[in-house]
């Protein structure tokens, strides 16, 4: 409604954003709630979004129901749910899917816990806070590929600092091949995921913490509430909506992540870190199975949507009770 009001400013009526627009011919000549000026301002952004984001997305969904392949001369044809039937029996894909879920859940949970701890510390009046604050932002500024390369140097079995340090502390014999070990590769990669994703979460949580009313804390502490009790009764309720949105987003981002693991292990050893995105990438751009890979993408979206719906609904229910 502010649209009509703001527009009429030109004629000098000076209505604020809160007043309802008067009914006039101009007010009625709107398409989807926007008049000519509005559309004119929106169009430069709208066209690229439609052509390069919304369009491809719909096209991609349609591709999932076809036998599209790269570099094939015969015409692509719809094959109904044949891709999904094949996918149901594709044990390699489901194995990768399980790894993807495990990775996304572990990284998201650890990221959240560690970022919450850091945000709480950064919200204190500690010395050297600036150092931690700056360091916490650096991973955000680094290209994914560089983060991957950096941790490959750390994990390097011979020249890496991790093996060397552990050897000096007499914890291991210093010959662990972190990224090639069947049991250690996934945990090692998860640590990198946590490291790389901490900045955003910390910044958002810190912003949330700064909205917690100080008076409530003082009142609670005067009433004799301890540290933990104040956290659960004062900080947490204010922080909760922020936590919900950032964990949901983190989960999506992590499940769809690609670059980090591509650089670290390329899915190896023996497919132990083959995230679904890597699997689908190979299917599409190594084997050229466009339709099949699109079907994988669609299944990934569907599962994420269901998981998120369950997660957010449960949390919202908790809120009500």
């Amino acid at each position, binding site marked *: 409604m502010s649209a009509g009001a703001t527009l009429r*400013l030109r004629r000098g009526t000076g209505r604020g954003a809160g007043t309802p627009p008067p009914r006039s011919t101009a007010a009625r000549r709107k398409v989807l709630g*926007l008049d000519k000026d509005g559309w004119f301002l929106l169009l430069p952004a709208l066209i690229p979004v439609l052509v390069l984001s919304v369009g491809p997305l719909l096209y991609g969904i349609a591709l999932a129901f076809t036998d599209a392949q790269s570099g094939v001369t015969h015409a692509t044809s719809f094959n109904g749910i044949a891709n999904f039937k094949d996918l149901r029996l594709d044990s390699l894909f489901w194995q990768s899917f399980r790894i993807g879920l495990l990775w996304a859940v572990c990284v998201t949970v650890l990221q959240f816990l560690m970022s919450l701890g850091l945000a709480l510390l950064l919200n204190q009046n500690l010395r050297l806070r600036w150092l931690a604050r700056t360091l916490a932002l650096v991973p955000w500024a680094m290209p994914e590929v560089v983060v991957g390369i950096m941790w490959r140097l750390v994990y390097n079995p011979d020249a890496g600092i991790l093996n060397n340090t552990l050897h000096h502390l007499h914890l291991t014999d210093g010959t662990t091949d972190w990224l090639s070990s069947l049991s250690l590769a996934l945990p090692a990669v998860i640590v990198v995921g946590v*490291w790389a994703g901490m900045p955003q979460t910390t910044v958002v949580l810190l912003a949330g913490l700064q909205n917690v009313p100080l008076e409530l804390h003082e009142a609670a502490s005067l009433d004799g509430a301890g540290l933990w009790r104040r956290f659960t009764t004062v900080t947490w309720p204010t922080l909760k909506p922020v936590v919900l949105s950032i964990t949901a987003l983190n989960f999506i981002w992590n499940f769809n992540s690609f670059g980090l693991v591509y650089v670290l292990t390329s899915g190896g050893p023996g497919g132990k870190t083959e995230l679904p995105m890597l699997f689908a990438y190979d299917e599409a751009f190594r084997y050229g199975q466009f339709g099949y890979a699109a079907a994988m993408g669609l299944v990934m979206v569907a599962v994420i949507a269901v998981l998120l719906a369950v997660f957010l609904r449960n949390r919202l229910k908790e809120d009500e009770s």
Partner: protein
Amino acid sequence: MSATDAAGVTAAPAPPASAGAGRRKARRRAGRAGQYLALLCYVVFLAFPLLWLVSTAFKSPQELGSVHPTWLPKHPTLDNFRTAFDEQPLLHAALNSLMVAGISAVVSVAIAVPAAYVMVRFRSLVSRAGTGWILVSQMFPLVLIIIPLFMVLKNLHLVDSRLGLGLVYVVWTLPFALWMLQGYVKAVPVSLEEAAAIDGCSRARTLRSVVLPLLTPGLVATLMFSFVTAWNEFFFGLVLLKSPEKQTMSVILTHFLGAEGAADLGPLAAASVLATLPSLLFFALLQRRLVGGMMTGAVKG
């Protein structure tokens, strides 16, 4: 006890003196020490990979081959940087990245400013659809977008082209640019626009002479952030660019990895350090603003 407060308060008034004051004081001191210890752990965890990367970049091949690596290079050298430039077309890649990221950031912000203005000031169905798109665009796995995008760009002969990649980056950086700019637009008081209108400003003039100058700091921050996002991007670059002379920094870096993995650690580290510098520089400039921008965007309710 207020000082040991880890529950999210910067400072609270001292509690009234009581019989347990001494014990409380001791507990407070222990709590402080615990906090510093925790902070130290975080600093170590966050800093040690960075330190290792930089240190590796300045080590000589002999030192890198040593079985007992040290934290700091004993004889710092720039050889790795020289080798890196010899091995891969780094300078070319940096120029490619600079061009693609720079142009796409400018275009993205240029089209995002009016759109963000409309989304904030005009409450319409389209504005809500825009907000919905910002959220939904975060949810879809890139593989679902990249395949059709690849096919569309191929028909337009924009695969393996920097222009094609730039176009993709415009749309790729748009959601966050819109998100940030909406926060900044909201901070511009409507009353200023009204005053300008009363003084007889046309709508276009109001936007140009009143809104835009007030948006400038936010605009710069959004521009830098979009640049960093595009500079750091890897997946689209990997899929869409095939010829080495067109590839961006992120993609070229993976060439150092080679088939047998990290055979040449020094140049790899050196090139990585170089690839991070521009983003790091921009981030240093905008860190305060970024945190503020995210907050204003987030509290829109």
